[in-house]
């Protein structure tokens, strides 16, 4: 038997990077050459990203750059035209939004989409849906297992609501909450699904500076407590520069820059595309 000649393997530069603390842990998300066309329009092209296990990453760019489209691709609302999305090392090709949710990706929405007529607690319990383990028959006839699981779900829901100090609002309907609280409830509901990666679509939209400050602390707190990664779209630069460890800048559906907040702030292309007006 002839042996094949010994070859030397070398490292190739990967298009992605992660914070040093997440080195050695598997990437929670890795998307390569991702793209989608709507008819003839190339909405997103050559989108590459790798997100570390506990990274907070910001996705920024001018309006219409394709940021929410990327969220819709990652959560499989749209099936990508090109490229791959790996969640926790598994390919998500042809999976549905509910399947990828169960694989550990959860999101909030730019325009709030709570279940308005359900109570705050019920909204969170919808998020817990796949973690409640009783049978429907047990639910109708109130078998002991129902009470046990329902009690567990109730406690879990209150515990999650307590992150934002909303436990006392558990029994009001979602549509009667003030705007900021609705945004916070969306985050709690997404957290309830037990994600490894949380996508936040403009979490600070419509919030005043002190609310934004509180939100930043809470995002950090969620990351530290649950040891999850966060990818967020945001226009509020104080928030983005304040909490993100890495930033990806998008313009016309393509990545124009990637790096740390200070690298992004000094990047002439970004300044031209996005922050241009700031430098007059």
């Amino acid at each position: 038997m002839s042996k094949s000649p010994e070859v030397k393997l070398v490292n190739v530069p990967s298009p992605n990077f992660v914070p040093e603390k997440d080195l050695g842990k598997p990437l929670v998300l890795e998307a390569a050459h991702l793209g989608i066309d709507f008819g003839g329009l190339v909405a997103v092209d050559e989108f590459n990203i790798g997100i570390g296990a506990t990274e907070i990453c910001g996705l920024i760019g001018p309006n219409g750059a394709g940021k929410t489209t990327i969220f819709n691709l990652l959560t499989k609302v749209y099936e990508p035209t090109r490229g791959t999305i790996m969640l926790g090392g598994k390919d998500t090709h042809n999976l549905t939004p509910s399947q990828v949710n169960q694989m550990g990706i959860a999101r909030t929405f730019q325009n709030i989409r709570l279940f308005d007529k359900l109570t705050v607690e019920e909204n969170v319990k919808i998020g817990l849906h796949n973690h409640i383990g009783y049978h429907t028959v047990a639910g109708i006839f109130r078998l002991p297992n129902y009470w046990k699981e329902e009690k567990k779900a109730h406690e879990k829901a209150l515990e999650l609501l307590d992150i934002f100090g909303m436990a006392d609002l558990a029994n009001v309907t979602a549509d009667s909450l003030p705007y900021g609280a609705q945004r916070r409830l969306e985050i709690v509901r997404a957290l309830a699904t037990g994600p490894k990666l949380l996508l936040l679509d403009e979490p600070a939209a419509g919030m005043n500076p002190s609310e934004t400050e509180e939100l930043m602390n809470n995002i950090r707190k969620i990351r530290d407590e649950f040891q999850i990664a966060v990818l967020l779209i945001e226009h509020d630069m104080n928030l983005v520069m304040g909490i993100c460890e890495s930033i990806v800048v998008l313009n016309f559906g393509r990545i124009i820059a990637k790096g740390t907040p200070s690298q992004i702030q000094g990047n002439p292309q970004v300044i031209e595309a996005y922050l241009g007006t700031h430098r007059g």
Partner: protein
Amino acid sequence: MLVHLINGISLGSIYAIIALGYTMVYGIAKMLNFAHGDVIMVGGYVSFFAMTKAGLPAPLALLLAIIVCTILGITIERLAYKPLRSATSLAVLITAIGMSYFLQNAALLLWGANPKAFPDMFKNAEAIEFFGAKISPVALVAIFANIVIMVILTLFTTRTKVGKAMRAVSEDKGAATLMGINVNFTISLTFAIGSGLAAIAGVLLCSAYPTLMPTTGSLPGIKAFTAAVFGGIGSIPGAMIGGILLGVIEILARAYISSELADAIVFGVLIVVLIFRPTGLLGKQIHEKV
């Protein structure tokens, strides 16, 4: 008077059970399933043949009808409505009407146009005296069945996680699926429950009015739809109240005014109610955002 009232509540209970199918499907899938009335007819035929040809006892015939209708309901949804989920509501409506005619004509082809005499399921039971009024056993069974179904369904939608998932899907399909809820399963389940109930209603209806033909389901179907709108479409207690009121109005009109005009009076009342409460008795008032 009392006997008419109880007969009205009994007929109304059958309408209510059918109306539940309309209202649940509307609530979840936001569509009017006009083939629902014809599922009732199929349930009637299945139980008829189970009892007369196969000689099965009544409870088994009912069970068989429920199973067949449940499968039929899921199949109709998968084949006819699911491909149109993102189409305009008008396209879905027309498909539903087409499905209704398809079922009627399939029944005509399979089982002929001749009315069949539905066997009396309760021939051993005596009519019951109630404050001097004679109540037929079918009437009592219908009222009882309606109450049981209503209690179970209410508990199901408010207390169980699948029921809560249903309410979530009815509010926002997109958000529900992103929270890990299997929307296709939830919609199939809704059709299954609605069609299973249609089978029960079909057997009760044929027991109370024992002529069975391919168009048996269509008028009760339309009336139950009216009852669902009357009570506020999308609302489970609304379907019950709407159904019972409609049944009582129909029987009283038939007894005291004119049996020819009864249906006209029923639909007349609907028009009046909708003028004053456009979303039905228990329907939510929708505030349009400008």
